[in-house]
């Protein structure tokens, strides 16, 4: 019963940690817009955490510049299990308009397992919300897989 309670709550309070890997700030602003009264992500329990140790979902925006790559990987490693990685916008998925630049190392999939990708430049807050919600459900699956 105790285990079931924990499994159920796993999807109901996903805390986000946001990493900007060289984004143009458009996606970041849209992510923050999700928390504003109009969209209010907090009603699903989403909350921005200050440190990766508290996070369940890591939201990565930006085309993974070579300066930020190592730091990104290190920070992702510091998130406790179970965790999800969400790539926000087209940049981490494909490199978007920055593709081919000497300083861009997209896609993100090369360095870690991405659970959900929200495409768009920039994605609408509704799309972000849906992506995050899917990630929350994946969290629950991961938790159940950990404790069969």
């Amino acid at each position: 019963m105790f285990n079931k309670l924990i499994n159920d709550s796993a999807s109901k309070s996903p805390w986000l940690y946001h990493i900007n890997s060289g984004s143009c700030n458009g996606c970041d602003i849209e992510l923050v817009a999700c928390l504003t009264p109009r969209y209010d992500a907090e009603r699903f329990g989403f909350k921005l955490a200050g440190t990766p140790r508290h996070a369940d979902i890591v939201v990565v925006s930006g085309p993974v510049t070579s300066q930020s790559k190592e730091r990104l990987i290190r920070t992702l490693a510091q998130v406790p299990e179970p965790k999800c990685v969400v790539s926000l916008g087209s940049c981490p998925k494909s490199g978007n308009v920055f593709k081919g630049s000497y300083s861009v190392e997209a896609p993100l999939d090369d360095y870690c397992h991405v659970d959900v990708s929200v495409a768009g430049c920039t994605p609408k807050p509704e799309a972000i919300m849906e992506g995050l919600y899917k990630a929350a459900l994946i969290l629950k699956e991961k938790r159940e897989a950990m404790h069969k």
Partner: protein
Amino acid sequence: MIILRSLFYILIFPGALFTACFGLFLTGVDRKVVARMQHRIGPPLRQPMYDFFKLLGKETIIPHAANKIAFLGAPIIGFVSLALIMLFIPVGGLTAFSGNADMIVILYLITIPGVALIVGGSSSGSPYAGIGISREMVTMMAYELPFVLVLLAVARKAGGSELAFSMEKVAEWQAANGNMLFQWSMIPAAIAMLLVVPAEVGTQPFDVAEAETEICEGPLIEYSGSALGMFKLNTAMKMFVMSGLFVSLFLGGIRTGFAVCDVIVFILLCIVVTIICMSTTHAVTARLKIEHLFKFYWTFVAGMALCSLILVWCGL
């Protein structure tokens, strides 16, 4: 028999379980009310419960720079002391343990969760935590002076010429003479106490220690999993304990005659106090700087409390 009764007191009714459950509920109320004030829908009332259980299911990472005993022991110590404080606070006229000068015991027990946070944060070996603990300690020094003055004023008012440093005496006095809050000489003390409560709990304008946007949650930076869950539970319990302390110090005179009704009234008053002093200030103010916080408490708030103490000492 007496062991069983004490066990019940400590584990279930005013102690651990009740405080924990109700603290989490109160946190939910706080979050909901803040959300409504900002025209949001807000999380469900049981959201803190989900948070807590989710954290129990997460992995606890102990960084290699941390001292394992202090790192994991700190949240436990905080939890125990919070469960104990509730035994000294009269819940609707029911005090589990009392004795003379139990106010000092409360004063000390209330500092322990803060100390636990500091020791835990300090042991994690992060410089962000270093800044966080320094701020937590300065906050503690800041609110301690007005808090002591308020307690002395209440004790003097309730005791008159004899010594009454106990919560039970305060409750008795209020049962006989009406609420402490309605004595005009006690109003400055009540306002001071209303400002002490959020600083003690660490909610919005006074959460310099755990400022997540500037110093990454301060002392909590390296915590994860169940240890973090315990700290979140401690904060929730602190919210209930502090609002309960305010209610029993200033609003303890409302008696219906039935024990159950008294407890319900107590709980409702706790919710009201939480909304007034934590949710509202949270919604309308921005975070202070640490030196401004210290100055604010040692001048304005302590001045209010001292004013009340002098009035009471003059027999008003």
